[in-house]
């Protein structure tokens, strides 16, 4: 295809000349494929999904009835079971975020402020590597760890205790484990930007360790923690695979969507349920935008 690209007057050369003279044409060519894909295919699919949330399914035939109504959303808001599952999902996502923040902060602080630059490089690689290990493998690892004869039970047995087994606690542990690197890395990046001299100055001026933390470290670290929380919160909110692997009989909002697509074959209701995590994330993003966290992503 590049046989004679430079022959004067060749078709390729003429096309190149045309493109060179017309930046508008160049731009349209560049934008055409990505926009066709992302707007027509992807946004179109999302819009169709949102639209179908306002349809219903015929109870007897299982066919979708294309008639606008808000029945799905009414069921979602009024039926106790869905409200409970939605609140439980938000609770799990919040708990995962808190657990991750509490574990990640000292780790990130130690990496950014105590480790030598050479050690920092290796520590970052140490945090990044498990990110490349499969999601499913990590969830599976906890299934193995938490099983009846697994490592956790074996480790606490001498103390007369037993592990949490499969259930919501296991889901929180597994999700917190899965998303921990997403919390450590932004906090590390945020603290790395905090000059060490500021900490020294604060100590020289007589501030206690707690005061230094509250007035010097936290204002810098907070947007980073929020940036990390966007990942941990959003990723936990949509998850249904971990719940299936370690959740026992527990259900989260993702499972309701999944079951309505598969077993119940009720796409309109599944679509309506799927708007819940999207709405929650939108509210969350708007709420945290003022912290400046979005620039920390």
């Amino acid at each position, binding site marked *: 295809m590049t046989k004679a690209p430079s022959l004067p007057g060749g078709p390729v050369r003429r096309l190149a000349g045309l493109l060179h003279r017309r930046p508008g044409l160049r731009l349209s060519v560049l934008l055409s494929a990505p926009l066709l894909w992302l707007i027509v295919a992807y946004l179109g699919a999302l819009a169709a*999904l949102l639209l179908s949330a306002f349809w219903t399914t015929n109870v007897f035939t299982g066919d979708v009835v294309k008639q606008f109504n808000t029945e799905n959303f009414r069921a979602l808001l009024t039926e106790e079971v869905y409200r409970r599952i939605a609140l439980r999902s938000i609770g799990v996502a919040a708990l995962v975020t808190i657990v991750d923040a509490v574990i990640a902060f000292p780790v990130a602080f130690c990496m950014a402020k105590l480790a030598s630059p050479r050690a920092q490089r290796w520590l970052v690689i140490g945090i990044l590597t498990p990110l490349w290990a499969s999601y499913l493998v990590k969830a599976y690892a906890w299934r193995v760890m938490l099983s009846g004869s697994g490592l956790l039970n074996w480790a606490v047995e001498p103390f007369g205790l037993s592990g949490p087994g499969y259930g919501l606690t296991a889901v929180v542990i597994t999700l917190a484990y899965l998303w921990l690197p997403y919390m450590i890395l932004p906090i590390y990046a945020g603290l790395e930007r905090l000059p060490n001299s500021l900490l020294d100055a604060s100590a020289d001026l007589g501030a206690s360790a707690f005061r230094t933390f509250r007035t010097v470290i936290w204002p810098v670290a907070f947007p980073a923690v929020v940036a990390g929380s966007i990942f941990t919160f959003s990723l936990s909110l949509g998850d249904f695979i971990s719940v299936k692997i370690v959740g026992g009989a527990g259900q989260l909002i993702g499972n309701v969507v999944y079951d309505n697509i598969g077993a119940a074959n009720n796409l309109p209701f599944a679509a309506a349920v799927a708007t819940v995590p999207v709405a929650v994330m939108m509210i969350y993003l708007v709420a945290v935008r003022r912290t400046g966290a979005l620039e920390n992503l």
Partner: protein
Amino acid sequence: MNTSLSRGTKIALWVALALGFAVIYAPLLVVLVNSFNADRAFGWPPSRLTGQWWAASWDNAGVRSALWTSVKAGLGATAVAMVLGTMAAFAVQRYRFFGRDTISLLVILPIALPGIVTGIALNNAFRTVLAPFGIELGLFTVVVGHATFCVVVIYNNVLARLRRLGTGVEEASADLGADTFQTFRYVTFPLLRSALLAGGLLAFALSFDEIIVTTFTAGAGVQTLPIWIFNNLFRPNQAPVVNVVAAALIVLSVVPIYLAQRISGDARTI
């Protein structure tokens, strides 16, 4: 490095760091050790170690075909994402136009929304739009779904590189008589290559690991490796093979980190 912290605080922080890394790596080590566990039920600690499961998994036809499907889906999605992501990055970085700021948001949307939303939206669209043309859910739809959320990583990498390059070398190339295509082929593309490789690596890894969108876009006959693992996770007699596949994937996760170091000298750039 830091002098303002007390000795006790420093020790506590180092202990926290060590514990954090222990928490991150312990479950992965357990899976690695368990893949050699001779006992089918994987009681801890293992009573006896054996390599027989690794041999059995190597010959497992299901694993092999799932691996091959995953590789094909990953390569297809990466190729599409590279083309789309590079085009979008050029448009945004080199031109001013109405709606330019929303492109970044549009590109990030497929990965920012919960996977299940993207999954059922695409599933619904494929079934209503493609089914009348006789196209069933299959490898093709998996590639389309994966490419949609892979565009963002290529876009980000290429955009960052273009911003750093500026337009000087391209203008010089044009002044010396090269046409638009020659400039791209001999000047811009070689300068973009490492950014494309790093982005492509990440896109492939994203696709290779994806399960949620895949669940909704793969037909009944198409099994990627994550789908295969998930389908066999709850079958006790398949547990040894699942263990070996999981262990192999953990070992393989070192490869992209190593490659990233080779490409850019810094794992953090991807």
